[in-house]
């Protein structure tokens, strides 16, 4: 299988082949790795590569292609999409409008909503304020545009990834 991995806007083509049970040959760009694989505990992987031992904690986000990888104290957010699916998605994205669906970056309480549907906003403008654990966090508009809809409600709790509001790009 061939995958396209995206990490920090950097794209890598990865080929994965299971040569025998729990043995993988992985080609990363032009580098090749033989991987001795074990999942001793759910989502905790033990990888032996060239005699080196790595304990890797992988969080798979269901219904998405995102993986949160924790390895030697560093966290990596990686999107891994099958190559054909990725090509299709890129085509779709090119044809789509620049509509921005803003999702909650964290679990929290919607403290204040500063905009209303139909209002025009500029990039960087604060749209709403989320509060969690005594910390207030501003949600800003990524583009110049017009507020399409506001799903968030003041005083209502949201989870990570919940839709907050939609910003439509300005008509050309």
């Amino acid at each position: 299988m061939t995958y396209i991995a995206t990490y920090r806007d950097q794209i890598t083509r990865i080929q994965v082949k299971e040569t025998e049970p729990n043995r993988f040959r992985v080609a990363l760009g032009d580098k090749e790795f033989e991987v001795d694989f074990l999942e001793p505990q759910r989502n905790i992987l033990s990888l032996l590569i060239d005699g080196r031992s790595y304990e890797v904690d992988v969080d798979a986000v269901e219904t998405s292609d995102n993986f949160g990888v924790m390895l030697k104290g560093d966290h990596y957010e990686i999107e891994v999409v099958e190559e054909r699916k990725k090509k299709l998605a890129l085509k779709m994205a090119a044809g789509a409008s620049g509509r921005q669906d803003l999702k909650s970056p964290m679990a929290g309480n919607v403290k204040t909503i500063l905009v209303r549907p139909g209002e025009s906003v500029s990039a960087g403008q604060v749209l709403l304020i989320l509060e969690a654990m005594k910390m207030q966090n501003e949600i800003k508009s990524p583009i110049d545009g017009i507020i399409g809809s506001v799903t968030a409600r003041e005083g209502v709790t949201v989870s990570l990834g919940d839709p907050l509001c939609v910003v439509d790009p300005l008509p050309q």
Partner: protein
Amino acid sequence: MFKKILIANRGEIAIRVHRACCELGVPTVAIFSEADRAALHVRVCDEAYCVGPAPSRQSYLNIDRILEVAKLTGADAIHPGYGFLSENAEFAERCAALGITFIGPNTKAIRVMGNKTTSRVAVAEMNVPLVPGMKENLRDEAHAMEWAERIGLPLMMKAAAGGGGKGMRMVTRLQDVPAAFRAAQSEGLSFFGDGSVYLERYVESPRHIEIQVLGDKHGNIIYFPERECSIQRRHQKVIEEAPSTIVDEAMRRAMGEAAVKAARSVGYDSAGTVEFIVSGKSREFFFLEMNTRLQVEHPITEMITGVDLCKEMIKSAAGDPLPFTQGDITLSGHAIECRIYAEDPDNNFLPTPGKIVGLRVPGGPWVRDESGMYEGLDVPIHYDPMLSKLVVWGSTRERAISRMLRALGEYAVKGIKTTIPFHARVIGSEAFAQGDFDTHYIDNHFRPADAARPMPHEDIALIAAAIQAFRRDKDRAQHLMGGQPNGQEHSAWKSSGRVRR
């Protein structure tokens, strides 16, 4: 000694107080909000009562309800922990009116030290050094200009009721004085309901070093060796150590004696902390404020002196005289504390409430985990993001550092992101090893470098993610064909709670 103690707090400090009570043979009463029914402190205490809905104002700050529970359970003392009602003079007075002992200092001490202006006046009378500045509040912008010229630049404009970095403005040019005055005044009003503002000199290469004091109801007050708390992020302490690398024996005694004088100015009769700002350049120290409670970072003092501060605080509230004199307090080795927060260090320290689906706690010699966590706990969104405090002791600073690095490496919290890896990078940094930092170190120097750090294991992370994607796709394909997936059995360590919403 008391018959029963109500602990008016939550999380790790409620458990810390319970442990002290337990060793003293005193039963405990926990209080909890509706969001904290599953919290660990509710399970460890002998009795537990709900005091209201999730928001603190309706529960952990709900004086009427907490006092009702105290009466109902027959508790004859209340330990407030830190935060919440710990420095609330009205609460202390209402406890006294009901014949319940507030485990803390006399109310005059709370009132005087709770305000920056009155505390400065009180300690100045005892000749405790203050940062050059005013002992009164500013009247208006013109008054601010006049004082700014008199004290000299750089300056700090401060709200009298401020704290935690709120209501403070640094001023480097005289023409910025009026704007800073207005800003500090409005922040003081909105955050603390008090628009009083004053000016003082800005101390260069500032270090935050504090002295623990302990007093009893018989007029005895002693001091402990200092705690170095300069590793801060946005004015909040992150890592503390004891002793400080820049304090020698003579300076330790001078700071300790100044702290005792400050405590004497209000007849201090409990555990408390006198905070000083110290110039990293001149080593001059100046009184900053006094915290009239048990501090978050009290364990590092316990580790280097062998004194159980929490227990001594309770005994002193019960009227016992201090069981030791100043000469009995000796310093041994070095201790470090890391505050573990539910925050994502790689995403601007956004809070990360959620379910802890796996937990492995560090152990081994001289490692202490002060925690309110357990596997399966859902960390609520309503309160402070501190999950635990990891404390280590070593016979030297170098040994304490390597022990802390080892313990952080063992500490595994699964399901939510924490600041554990960030701590490991700070403790492992060259500047920390050298003791070369001030209160701006994290925000101005460490974090920019940290964000740009190389990720040496990126290839391995990509391989792991790709293999997991491959196995998932294979499972799905087999599932569609009616076969058995190759996935493993679910274990208790990783349950379906793992799936992120």
